[in-house]
C-alpha cells in the first residue's frame, strides 16, 4: 500500500456564475508522476492555484499527507450562486495562505515564468531558502546567523550544480534562455525542500529536443530528491512517456483517468481532446 501524498475531494471553484473547476477528485501517491491534461481553459491551473492556497475553493477538501489542509463550503454570496454538487458535505473553512502550504512541502512552478526579475540566478534560489530560516530579523540584520547563511549558500550552490545552472549563477535571471529560466523555476521550487512538486506546463514553448531533455530531467529529479510530481502539460509525448497516471479535465470536470495506455485509447478523451488536436 503506497502512501497518499495529495488527495483532492470534490474540489469546486466558481467565480461569480462561472464554474472553473467542477467537483474534481483526484489523488497522487508517493513517488508518482501524475499528469493533469485537458484543453486550454479546462481549469487545470485553477486547480493548481487552489492546491497551493492562491485561490480559495468554493467547495471541497484537500488533504496533504493524510492531513486536511484546505477545506471550504459555499457561504456568503456563494450560498445562492453555487452551481456545483456535494453542497453541505463540508463544514469547515480552512484557508491557508500560499506560504503556509509551501511550508508543509508543496512547491510549484508557474505557467508564465515568474522569476524575481531583478535578481541573479543564485539569489532566485537562495531567496527560496528564506522560508526554512531559523533566524529572526535582528539576528539576520546583525549577522548572528552567519552559520545558517553559509549553509544556505552552500546548499544553493549545490542545487545549482545538480541542475546544471552553476555556470550562470551570477547572471541576472532574465538573461537566461527560456529553457533555462524554466529550469531555474524548478530549482527555486526545489530549494523550498518540497515533498510534492507541482509543475505548470514545464515544457511550454520548448522544441522537441528540449522536451526530451526535460522528460529525462523530471524523472531524474523525482528520483534524486525523492519527490512526488504532479504536472500540467500539453506536450503529449512528454505526458505519455513519463506519467504513471493521468487525469483529463474538460470544462472544469474530470472526464477520464488512468494509465497513459488507458487514456490513449479512451474514446471520450479522444473526442474531447486528442481527436481535435493530434499535434498537441
Amino acid at each position: 500500500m503506497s502512501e497518499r501524498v495529495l488527495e483532492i475531494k470534490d474540489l469546486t471553484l466558481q467565480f461569480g456564475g462561472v464554474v472553473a473547476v467542477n467537483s474534481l477528485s483526484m489523488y497522487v501517491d508517493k513517488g508518482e508522476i501524475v499528469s493533469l491534461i485537458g484543453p486550454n481553459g479546462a481549469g487545470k491551473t485553477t486547480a493548481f492555484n487552489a492546491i497551493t492556497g492562491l485561490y480559495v475553493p468554493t467547495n471541497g477538501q484537500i488533504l496533504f499527507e493524510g492531513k486536511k489542509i484546505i477545506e471550504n463550503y459555499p457561504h456568503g454570496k456563494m450560498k445562492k450562486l453555487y452551481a456545483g454538487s456535494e453542497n453541505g458535505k463540508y463544514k469547515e473553512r480552512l484557508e491557508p495562505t500560499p506560504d503556509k502550504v509551501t511550508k508543509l512541502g508543496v512547491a510549484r512552478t508557474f505557467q508564465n515564468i515568474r522569476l524575481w526579475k531583478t535578481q541573479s540566478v543564485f539569489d532566485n534560489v537562495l531567496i527560496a531558502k528564506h522560508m526554512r530560516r531559523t533566524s529572526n530579523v535582528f539576528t539576520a540584520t546583525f549577522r548572528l546567523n552567519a552559520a545558517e547563511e553559509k549553509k544556505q549558500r552552500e546548499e544553493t550552490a549545490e542545487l545549482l550544480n545538480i541542475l546544471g545552472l552553476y555556470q550562470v549563477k551570477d547572471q541576472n535571471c532574465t538573461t537566461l534562455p527560456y529553457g533555462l529560466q524554466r529550469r531555474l523555476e524548478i530549482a527555486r521550487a526545489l530549494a523550498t525542500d518540497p515533498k510534492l512538486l507541482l509543475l505548470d506546463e514545464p515544457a511550454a514553448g520548448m522544441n522537441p529536443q528540449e522536451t526530451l531533455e526535460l522528460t529525462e530531467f523530471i524523472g531524474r529529479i523525482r528520483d534524486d530528491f525523492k519527490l512526488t510530481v504532479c504536472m500540467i502539460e500539453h506536450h503529449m509525448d512528454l505526458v505519455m512517456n513519463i506519467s504513471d497516471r493521468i487525469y483529463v479535465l474538460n470544462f472544469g470536470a474530470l472526464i477520464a483517468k488512468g494509465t497513459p495506455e488507458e487514456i490513449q485509447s479512451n474514446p471520450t478523451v479522444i473526442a474531447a481532446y486528442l481527436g481535435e488536436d493530434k499535434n498537441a
Partner: protein
Amino acid sequence: MGFFQTNLPYLLAGISTGGQYALIAIGYTMVYGILRLINFAHGDVFMCAALMVIYSASYLPLYVSVPVAIVATGILGFAIERVAYKPLRTAPRMSAMISAIGMSYLLQNLALYVTGGLTKYYPPIPYISDSIEIFGAMTKRVTVITPIVTVVLIIALVSIIKYTKIGIAMRAVSRDFETAQLMGVKINSVISATFVIGSLLAAVGSTLFFSNYTGVTPTVGGMPGLKAFVAAVFGGIGSIPGAVIGAFIIGICENLIKGLGWTTFSDAFTFVLLIIVLMFMPTGLFGEKTTDRV
C-alpha cells in the same frame, strides 16, 4: 426640527462643497482611468484657474475674464500633459507620478513667485456671490447653484463619454491601453482630451469654490485637491459616478463635522472615512476588482 434648523446651513454647504469636489475629482479619476496616474498637479491646476481669474479680472470685465480663465486652464492642462507626462509614457509608473509631484511643486512655486507670497482675493461675481436666504438660513447663492452646475456638467460629460467618438475612444483606452492603440485609437489625442476636460471642470469648480472661500494662496489647491482625490479613491478610482458620489459624501460629512464643532478634525475625518471604506472594499465603492492572473 431644531436639529434640522441648526444643521441645515452645514448640510447646504456640504452639498455645495461636495459638488465642487466632484468637479475636481472627475479630473483625477479620468486621468487615472486612462493613464493609471495620480495627477498630483491637478489641485494646483485648480489653484491656477483661480489666479488666472484674479489677474485677468483686473484688465477685463468678469463676464470675459472667467470664461477666458476657464479656457486658459484647459490649455494649461493640455500643456502639463505634453510637458510632464507624455515623455514618460513608457517609463515606470512611479516616474510619471514623480513628474506629477514635480509639476505640482513647479506650479505652486510659480504662483508664489507671481503673487509674491501675498493672499489674493477672488473678485465677487455678481449674482452667484450674492447672499440669499433658504429656510431661514443665510448663505451665498453659489451654494445653491453649485449642485445644479455640477449635475448639468456631469450629464454633459457622461453624454460625451457615451455618445461621441472621443468618448468611445476614452472608454476603449481606459479598458485596455495597448489594444486600443493597436486598434488605431489615437492615444495622444484621447489623453489630451482627458486632461483638457479634467482641467476645464476643475476651473469651473474653482470659480464656484472661490466665490465661497475667497482667499487664494499658492498652496490653496492642496487640500481641496487631496480631498477630491480621496473622493475619487473612495468611489473607486477610475469610476466617474464613483468619484461624484464620493465627492458628495465627503463634502457633506466634512461640513457636518464642522457643524458639530470638530473643525480640527474636518480634514482628518475625510481620511478616516476613506480608510474605513478601503478596509471593507479595498478598491473603493465602485472600483474594478482586480484578480492577479497566474
